[in-house]
């Protein structure tokens, strides 16, 4: 019996365990496997294999019973996830339904999740803009949160490393606040977007820029990506269904199959992580406890290095639930700050308008990206009555507008032979930096459990006065820029959405220099438990304005190399 247990334990022992198979977890696993580390990847959701498990990817519009729409019954059952723009008939199977993993909203928070192998990497918006020192130096310069323990120079080569492998298209724009990277050819802006670019130059000199957004799509160097079994992006804009070409980066199309090919990866789906095991005598983490999603049995796996990449809030949940007599308030939580200083991106506001000019032009074909405004507010110095600033999306489009007046033969003719182009529409949405605060936190509900018997996460995150001022400024500034560009019929909106719908929740396990005021060190190790690395959104000290996934990839790759070099010491 004793021998059997020992053998059993050996079989469940690896050289590293990665919790989570999304963007950051799959990058940690890929790097570890490339470096020869026998790695177990745990994923709470079901397996999703590239192509095979994309049931809707080649469906035609008329093959969807409701032509893409979510039914009223689905909306009623899922008040949270049905707010997400991508929760539609073609991709709903990749989202967590509200009842599957309940949580407590101490304040309104839309927690959008994807529990499957690949996580939200199947669903993300694929925007990949680098951070610069304008971002890493933000907290120190402006006096909020704590100073990041790293700077751009620490991460720049890792950005390059992940960009080359993932495939990032973009232009060398030469902007100090949005460093250039390893780019495949960029996508074109259209004629009205270029017009706006020129107008910005004319009206604001070199202060404000709008560029073609860098995106994680293969737009060149096809032979290189063929090694991963991926092909050029076909401009289908059906990414959320999973791409049969592997045209955009997802864990499923890229890092996971690559890691599996090394022979070093063991992938275990349907494994809901309960906690990280801490050995009081050894003074380090020794493994991970899971609940099998089907049998509901608890099982343990062991490794000398643990990577926690469960996505920002779930990484908080797992650490909070990993209690021991050494860490009664959650693993590594000597500072008492675990779960605090959660922040997000403010996506509340948008501006739309029409453009009367260029009426003889339209566009053809598709592209997977659009325009991007890097932050210009408070960039070099504090210039407004709020801290930090916002990036913004921008695009112009034009379509054929069939005349739907009347009924009968004339209507039918008009529908089948549309010849009237509508006006050019232009639109922008804000992506505001929010300031991490102790009062924005997550904690475990003392009573409520989820269907696996895990404590429910209680989320208490809200906007503040800084966010309100920033919304106002964005609306004023974008309106002014639109007016100066000659756009007409300008409309502003503030939809007052709850935090969370941005799907950029961050923090709670922040990095910092001082164990008294942070959880992680400059290498993403828990100060108090250095063989546990957290390299997803939970580790973010501040949010800046850029879509964060690229930074998580770079963090995960960098930390994986650090872990391997530590193990050789």
């Amino acid at each position, binding site marked *: 019996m004793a021998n059997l247990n020992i053998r059993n334990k050996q079989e469940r022992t690896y050289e590293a365990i990665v919790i989570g198979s999304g963007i950051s977890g799959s990058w940690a696993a890929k790097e570890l496997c490339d470096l020869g580390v026998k790695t177990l990847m745990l994923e709470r959701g079901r397996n999703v294999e590239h192509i095979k498990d994309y049931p809707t990817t*080649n469906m*035609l*519009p*008329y*093959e969807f*019973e*409701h*032509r893409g*729409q*979510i*039914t*009223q*019954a689905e909306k009623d059952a899922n008040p949270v996830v049905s707010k997400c723009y991508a929760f539609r008939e073609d991709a709903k199977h990749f989202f967590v339904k509200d009842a599957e993993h309940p949580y407590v909203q101490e304040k309104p928070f839309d927690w959008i999740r994807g529990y499957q192998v690949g996580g939200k990497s199947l669903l993300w918006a694929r925007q990949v803009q680098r951070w610069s020192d304008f971002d890493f130096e933000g907290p120190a310069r402006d006096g909020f949160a704590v100073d990041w323990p790293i700077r751009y120079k620490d991460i720049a080569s890792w950005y390059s490393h992940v960009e080359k492998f993932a495939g990032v298209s973009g232009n060398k724009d030469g902007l100090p606040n949005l460093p250039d990277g390893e780019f495949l050819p960029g*996508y*074109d*802006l*259209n*004629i009205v*977007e*270029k017009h706006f670019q020129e107008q910005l130059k004319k009206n604001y000199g070199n202060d404000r820029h709008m560029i073609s957004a860098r995106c994680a799509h293969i737009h060149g160097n096809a032979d290189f990506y063929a090694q991963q079994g991926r092909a050029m992006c*076909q*401009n*289908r*804009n*059906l990414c959320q269904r999973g791409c049969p070409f592997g045209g955009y980066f997802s864990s499923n199309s890229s890092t996971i199959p690559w890691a599996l090919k090394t022979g070093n990866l063991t992938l275990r789906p349907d494994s809901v992580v309960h906690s990280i095991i801490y050995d009081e005598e050894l003074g380090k983490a020794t493994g991970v406890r899971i609940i099998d999603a089907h049998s509901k049995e608890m099982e343990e796996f062991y490794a000398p290095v643990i990577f926690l990449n469960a996505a920002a809030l779930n990484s908080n949940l797992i650490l909070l639930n990993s209690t021991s007599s050494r860490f009664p308030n959650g693993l590594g939580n000597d500072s008492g700050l675990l779960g605090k200083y959660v922040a997000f991106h403010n996506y509340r506001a948008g501006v739309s308008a029409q453009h009367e000019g260029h009426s*003889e*032009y*339209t*566009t*053809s*074909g*598709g*592209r997977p990206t659009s325009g991007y405004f890097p932050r210009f507010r408070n960039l070099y110095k504090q210039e407004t009555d709020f801290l930090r600033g916002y990036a913004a999306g921008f695009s112009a489009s034009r379509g*054929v507008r*069939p005349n*739907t007046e*009347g*009924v*009968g*033969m004339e*209507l*039918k003719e008009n*529908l*089948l032979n*549309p*010849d009237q*182009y509508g006006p050019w529409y232009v639109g922008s949405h804000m992506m505001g930096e929010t300031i991490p605060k102790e009062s924005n936190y997550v904690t475990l509900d003392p009573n409520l459990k989820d269907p696996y018997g895990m404590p429910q996460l209680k989320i208490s995150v809200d906007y503040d006065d800084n966010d309100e001022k920033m919304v106002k400024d964005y609306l004023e500034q974008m309106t002014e820029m639109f007016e100066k560009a000659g756009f007409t019929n300008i409309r502003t909106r503030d939809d007052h959405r709850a935090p969370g719908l941005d799907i950029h929740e961050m923090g709670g396990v922040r990095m910092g220099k001082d164990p008294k005021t942070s959880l992680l060190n400059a290498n993403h190790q828990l100060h108090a438990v250095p063989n546990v690395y957290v390299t997803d959104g939970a580790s973010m000290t501040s949010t800046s304005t850029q879509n964060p996934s690229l930074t998580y990839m770079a963090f995960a790759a960098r930390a994986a190399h650090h872990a391997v070099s530590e193990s050789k010491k």
Partner: protein
Amino acid sequence: MNRRIALRHLALISGGLAFIPSCDFSSDDILSAYKNLKITQSQKQLLGNISNVIIPAGEIKGALDIEVPDFILVMVNDCMDSEQQTLFTTGITAFPEFAKGFSSLGNKEKEAIILSGQKLEGDETEAGANNKAISFFLNTTKRFTIQGYMASEYIQSEVIPYSLIPGAYNGSVLISDIQKPRING
């Protein structure tokens, strides 16, 4: 009890003396496929007639030829809330009274009735409530007729084929260089 079945019972009880509009009740069962709506076979027929006025058959098939009424009922049944569903069913029930003898009218007259019904406005009275429902029913029917027709397999494969791969982006195309605007894919 369904209003029509109630009427039929009344007719039987009174020895067939009651006035019954000239439609066939023999198969007027509630259609179980649209369980939220309690739509009868004859109401579905009426919906078919209306959708076929909105997009009639010709050289290219019309709405009824490609079963657009099914699509309309699926959408109303599955994708509308109960308040909208009640408006829709009240509207379809009130329509025969508003458009007396609809099925025997000529095409132009049918079109005129639908157009005027779409513009009806509601008020606080019972008749006003019916008017509101009729206009909601007709506008909903038109919207879903257009959607169901244009996003049908027939249109998107035989008439204006849908392209899953739209081609590389060109951000400044002269409209004068395009032969026919692309609308599918």
